């Protein structure tokens, strides 16, 4: 553009007088030139003398660096893969194996309803094994544990959410199996053709594949139970009392059901054909009911956490007892508000507002705070025996009672 203007101007000059030089001032710019007369230009630079004099740019007030990062980076798949340690990688592979076994059982179950029901159970196991692995891997990252403004409790609550989703799977699976079972019964009652087909299928299945199926289920459950500590955390929250007396992993309802039913299914082919057909359905129904009730319990246990409630150690009763004890402390007039809730498997919060009597000095206040937090930790944190490590974070807001 500049050169164009140049040439035209040069041309007009040449027409006037043959002067090889161009003495006129020229504006060379790429944009159309605007005159700046009468227009104010802002102060662009805060360090210019004008700005410094007129305080147009004010420094922001000095602020301490934030205590918490606003948000921590959430790892991508690639980063997660890179962060894997050796044993974590092994666990990941095993988790995939478990899923593969579940698929295998599902496809091999063919005509046997009980085996199909078992495959649902194994699917659930595989799913929570996968959750275990993912939780393990995410634990490598800061965003998981450390709180930021974005995620005040880290991402650890995601495990609860995943568990809740798994419990939905259990419920869904239970329903699904029931409906399948119902359909089968309806078919066998109403339609003879379908019935025949199924008998045929049964003969096909019952040879030795059921043994294989149940063996695979048992093996995978055991490996997951010991290798990944599958279901360990959920089971602690649930505490099924009538199974608690059983030894080691059998006391875990999830492992118990899988092992029990796969053992049962392994015995199934030993029975006569006529009995087999009904027993098959019966086992399917029992499994689906078990899945349903178990899913219900898991959903409630985790739903409570997601609803920001405390359902752990004796739940509400325990909290009431603790509150009563705090109230009886000398110097505490009353409790103004108390919020006890569980954030995730390893963390609970107790936020208390207490009114203290006048004339409490600071040293005593600090002691009181310590006393209360150890009290809560001892009473509600399941410290002993179970190997549980629920941490209680206690926040105590004290207000001096003005009326006394």
């Amino acid at each position, binding site marked *: 553009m500049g050169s164009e203007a140049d040439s035209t101007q040069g041309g007009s000059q040449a027409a006037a007088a043959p002067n090889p030089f161009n003495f006129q001032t020229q504006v060379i710019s790429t944009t159309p030139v605007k005159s700046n007369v009468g227009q104010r230009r802002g102060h662009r630079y805060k360090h210019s003398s004008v700005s410094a004099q007129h305080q147009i740019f004010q420094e922001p*007030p*000095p*602020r*301490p*660096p*934030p*205590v*918490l990062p*606003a948000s921590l980076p959430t790892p991508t798949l690639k980063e997660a893969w890179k962060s894997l340690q050796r044993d974590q990688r092994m666990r990941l592979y095993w988790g995939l194996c478990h899923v593969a076994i579940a698929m295998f059982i599902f496809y091999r179950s063919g005509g046997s309803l009980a085996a199909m029901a078992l495959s649902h159970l194994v699917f659930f196991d595989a799913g929570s094994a996968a959750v275990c692995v993912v939780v393990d891997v995410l634990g490598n990252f800061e965003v998981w544990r*450390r*709180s930021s*403004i*974005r*995620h*005040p409790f880290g*991402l650890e*609550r*995601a495990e609860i*959410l995943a568990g*809740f*989703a798994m419990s*939905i*799977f259990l419920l*869904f699976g239970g*329903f*699904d199996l029931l*409906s399948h079972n*119902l*359909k089968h019964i*309806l*078919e066998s009652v*109403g339609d003879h053709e379908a019935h025949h087909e199924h008998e045929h299928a049964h003969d096909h299945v019952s040879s030795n594949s059921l043994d294989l199926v149940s063996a695979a289920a048992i093996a995978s459950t055991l490996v997951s139970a010991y290798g990944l500590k599958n279901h360990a955390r959920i089971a602690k929250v649930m505490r099924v009392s009538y199974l608690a007396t059983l030894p080691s992993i059998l006391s875990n309802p999830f492992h118990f059901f899988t092992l029990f039913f796969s053992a049962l299914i392994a015995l199934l082919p030993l029975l006569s054909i006529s009995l087999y057909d009904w027993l098959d359905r019966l086992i399917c129904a029992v499994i689906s009911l078990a899945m349903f009730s178990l899913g219900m319990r898991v*959903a409630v246990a985790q*739903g409570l956490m*997601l*609803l*920001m*409630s405390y359902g752990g150690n004796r739940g*509400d009763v325990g*909290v009431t007892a603790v509150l009563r004890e705090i109230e009886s402390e000398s110097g505490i007039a009353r409790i103004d*508000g*108390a*919020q006890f*809730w569980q954030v995730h498997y390893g963390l609970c*919060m107790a*936020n*208390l507002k207490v009114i203290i009597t006048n004339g409490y000095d*600071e040293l005593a206040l*600090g002691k009181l*705070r*310590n006393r209360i*937090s150890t009290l809560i930790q001892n009473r509600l944190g399941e410290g002993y025996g179970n190997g549980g490590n629920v941490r209680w*974070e*206690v*926040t*105590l*807001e*004290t*207000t*001096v009672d003005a009326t006394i």
Partner: protein
Amino acid sequence: MDTSYSLPSSALPHAHRAHTRSQPPSLNNTWRMTVSSDSLPSQLEDDEDGDHHHDHDHDHGRSHSHLRSKGYSHSPPPLSPSFLHAHSYSIDETAHNHDPNHNHTHSHDNGHDHDHEHNHKHDKHFHSQLHSHDHSHDHSHDHDHHHDHDHSHGVGISNGHNHASERSLFTRTILPYTVGWPILYSILAEKDSRRIFYFMTLNFGFMIIQAFYGYVTDSLGLLSDSIHMFFDCVALLVGLLAAVMSKWPKSQRFPYGFGKVETLSGFANGILLMLLSVEIAFEAFERLWEGTETKRLGELFVVSSLGLAVNLVGMMAFGHHHHGHDHGHSHGHSHGHSHGEKHDDGCDSHSGHSHGHDHGHGHGHDHENENMRGIYLHVLADTLGSVSVIVSTVLTSFWGWSGWDPLASCFIATLIFLSAQPLVFSAAKRLLLTVPEGVEYNLRNILAGIGQQRGVVGYSTPKFWMDDHGGEKLLGIVHVTVARGAALEDTKDRVREYLLKEGIDAVIQVERDGDNGCWCTRGRALANPPQMSKQF
């Protein structure tokens, strides 16, 4: 708070105030009472410019319930001329409409206009959409306030409307009889739960009829469809339970109330839909593999069209909700467009609408009802299922290729899965106590402001999360370290007041500088060493 000076937010409260004044004094008293019993914060905030919205909104809600109790019905109050083109259909909207010379109010009208055909939740989003469009992201505060406004706006409308026109004749007739059963009454009194309840009843009735006919005629298709119906009923029952529970008060067991129940139920419904879609796809592949031919086409056709009819009723009942939510949601993109097309009358404001997705984060925290959205998606999935069966039966009867049905199923399964995904994600975010982006930005500033309070040396372990009960409020804890020489009590009060002013209800623990007894000091020592205390 700088944004509270911007035009719309400062214009709206005045209108509201005028409105409030027009209410009988007794009404105001009742409201005051609620506020004072509710919490101190809102009273304090009354003096704050920005928070006026919120309070006055509550006023609105109350005022309408008041109207309702008086048995106020259709007598449209004097309408402003600009408003006449919008339908003159209810008191609430007109009462809501402030000075019409304000352009924001005008677009509000448009929203209403539009909304009349859909629903009220809708206009809330409209409102917000328009506003959010006008303001840049930085103004999220302002934006928030609008949200508050909108939210209660919706409440106000729903209250008033229920009684003026929306509560059907049927409801009005049976409502007095249900007083004896408090549960039933509470279900019927609320709009959401009432809808779910009616639809559930319809579904259940249809299921019984279907099962009966299926039994009599020995038809497997009917019977298995009634099983399916039963599952739908169960899902609806869960939704109904959540809708009722969400109104339950706080207790020691549930210190933050039941605001998350609906989110939880929405999450569960979303997961359920995902599982369902996976199952459908699985079965479809299986059928495609084995090539089972579809039998008894006629029966299937009849059953699925009946199911379609029932589900269409459900769609109509729940559909409004969904639209509204979609707008507020970050993926409202395409919907925005479709609305623009549908409602040409309000075009000028609608056209800007499609930009809504930019602001998705801005109002992701709005109290959108995940429960209703989940139910809507469920019904939608069923409807799609029926449609796919109908289409595939027709195609099969014409061409006789048995692959149509699995193909349609696969297609539907993908659709269901994709539609459930955003619901699951947004519900998950809420349940994880994630602070949405816009709020987080403000929160960082507010937290930095704690350090500015007199006597404060520093603070640690600030943990804040969204309150479920009101737009922008935050709950949480913070431990404040107090300088030597400053009174603990006073400093605490100052910090508390400051936080309340910013809309945060926190439990504040004060500690003397140098006292490292609390657990929070351990965390701090690990997280970022001493730099904090050196500053001062």
